[in-house]
């Protein structure tokens, strides 16, 4: 910062302000990648739950028997990731959702979602990088 001290900063982000901003597809209890809101909406016990792309570390798909599994890993403390001067979370002493695993019989769709999340994450990191370079 201005004092030449590197501090861990948390930049606030928000998926939605109101519950009428969810994409309509959440009604089907499926994973929805909402590019416009930089958010993944996950069905958890009948509720659409938004996770901003800034909270996501990565997503990967694997197959086992008739099911495809999509594992979404989130950023949390103690992983040794993230840029030094950036903290992707506000409170390191909070409880964190570290990963969520979903299964589906539709392997292609799971692969597609994993790819969409990876792309969205890449773009978010790139935009962040560009912003930084402008600031410097």
């Amino acid at each position: 910062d201005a004092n030449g001290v590197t501090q861990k900063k948390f930049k606030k982000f928000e998926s939605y302000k109101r519950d009428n901003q969810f994409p309509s597809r959440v009604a089907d209890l499926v994973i929805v990648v909402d590019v416009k809101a930089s958010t993944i909406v996950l069905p958890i016990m009948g509720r659409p739950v938004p996770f901003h792309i800034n909270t996501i570390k990565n997503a990967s798909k694997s197959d086992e028997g008739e099911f495809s599994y999509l594992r979404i890993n989130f950023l949390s403390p103690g992983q040794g990731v993230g840029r030094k001067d950036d903290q992707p979370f506000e409170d390191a002493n909070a409880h964190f959702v570290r990963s969520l695993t979903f299964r589906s019989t539709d392997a292609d769709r799971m692969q597609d979602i994993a790819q969409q999340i990876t792309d969205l994450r890449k773009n978010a990191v790139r935009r962040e990088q560009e912003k930084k370079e402008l600031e410097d």
Partner: protein
Amino acid sequence: MESFERIHLDLSKQPGKCRIAETGLGWKPSGGGDTFTLDLNNIGGAQWSRAAKGYELKILSRTSGVIQLDGFDQEDFDRIAKAFKLFYGINVESKEHALRGWNWGKGEFGKAELAFNVQNRPAFEIPYTEISNTNLAGKNEVAVEFSLPAGGAETGTNGHLGGARSRGHKAGAAKDQLVEMRFYIPGTVAKKEKHEDGEEK
């Protein structure tokens, strides 16, 4: 009596008709099948919030866990709240969920479910009946596994109650089914466990 159409019971694929009567609550699948009923003495509390299909009336029952009725219109709230007050003497609590998209907050254990709160608003809730197993997956890491039907085909399609499962297997009703959730809980692991970790290495 109040009656509502196209309501989903516990994430049922099929909608049905929900009735709120003096003696209790009922739900009948539109396509035919057994009627689910809940006696008024079994209704311990009720919440209203936004869910997947529309608005959700969540009932905290005394003996049957959490009952979720989804698909109401926002305007239905007044009728529901009045009926609950009049018939059961219960206030329907309106609950707004967190929409920030953050993955940090506070896990809080309620009577029937585990709520993950972000800035004092629930982001999601997990009824205990849906949990099949939990274990310490690593230092400060807790894994929660969910009850799911063995085959994808049987998932909530043909069961009685039009595919609804009044207890358990709510995760199995979704197209994309939640299998496992891991939490990172900093600073709660006792020294003993750290010691065990050390021994394993």
